[in-house]
């Protein structure tokens, strides 16, 4: 088989296999690229309200029951914690209730994972470690192959000896110029 034909076959087939992960990594890449602007994994909502009265001289468990009854929350309590003598935190599934005894303010924090986005981020950032590390490495090698093989797929004026060379140089130039500007000018 001619080497260019073999290259096209490999580029095509490896390209098909890499499609799924490329889309996953690209979507996750956009999400975590803006990590300073938002939480890419979780939707966190906080609401604060005041309650009228706080009972005194009650146990932690009695206070928890009182707060839940006042807020009309029926979900099961998983655990609780007193960060200070004037604070109480109640942990429910996907929810934390924080009570300040002095101000009588209750903050309810609800945490929901961003469906599919959290999973793609976990894959992209290799949260799982172990075998996934090797899968991600194999995918990276596949991307390198796709990039380099792509340079030689086309012959003639649209190939690497023609306009392809200029476009490839532009592609390398963008990050290099940015780094130079960032380090020496900006």
């Amino acid at each position, binding site marked *: 088989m001619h080497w260019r034909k073999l290259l096209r076959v490999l580029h095509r087939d490896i390209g098909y296999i890499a499609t799924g992960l490329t889309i996953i990594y690209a979507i996750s890449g956009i999400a975590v690229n803006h990590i300073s602007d938002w939480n890419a994994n*979780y939707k966190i909502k906080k609401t604060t309200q005041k309650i009228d009265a706080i009972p005194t001289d009650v146990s932690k468990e009695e206070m928890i029951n009182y707060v839940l009854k006042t807020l009309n929350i029926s979900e099961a309590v998983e655990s609780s914690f007193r960060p200070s003598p004037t604070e109480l935190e109640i942990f429910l599934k996907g929810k934390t209730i924080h009570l300040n005894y002095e101000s009588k303010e209750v903050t309810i924090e609800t*945490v929901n994972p961003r469906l599919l986005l959290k999973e793609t981020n976990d894959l992209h950032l290799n949260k799982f470690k172990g075998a996934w590390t090797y899968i991600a490495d194999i995918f990276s090698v596949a991307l390198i192959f796709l990039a380099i093989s792509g340079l030689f797929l086309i012959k003639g004026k649209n190939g690497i000896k023609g306009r392809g060379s200029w476009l490839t140089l532009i592609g390398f130039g963008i990050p290099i110029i940015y780094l130079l500007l960032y380090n020496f000018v900006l």
Partner: protein
Amino acid sequence: MKNLVLFLFLSVLLASNTYSQEGVNYGKKLTLNEKTPISELFKNPKQYSGKIVQVEGLIVKVCEKRGCWIDIASDEEFEKIRLKVDDGVIVFPLEDKGKIIIAEGVFEELIYTKEDLIEQGEHQAKEYGTKFDPKTVTSGKVEYRLKGLGAIVK
């Protein structure tokens, strides 16, 4: 092709954040047989500074951004200790808040100047969208934390 798909599927299952009857494992396997009460670490910090200890407690806070630290409640009321890991080495999900953890780490003594604390306060306020008044910081402080190595969350 079918073998490749099967291989990939099995590989994903064999993740190192593995599930066991005890709970979810993070990081390195636990090595110690004895737990040290967190209150004991705070009472005798010099004795434990630089040493690997194993603690057990309730996770009361998780870093929202990168899951790179958690706060573990002490056996003593109103007390907690921070367990910090390097970004990406262990990622604690927010869902772990309110769960029991057994963790091992190196007990560290950190000395912060007033300027360090102001910078920290500004960073946390920015991260959590809260307000921070630098005037509330009047001096430096010594903080104790665990540099996390491994954990099991039940």
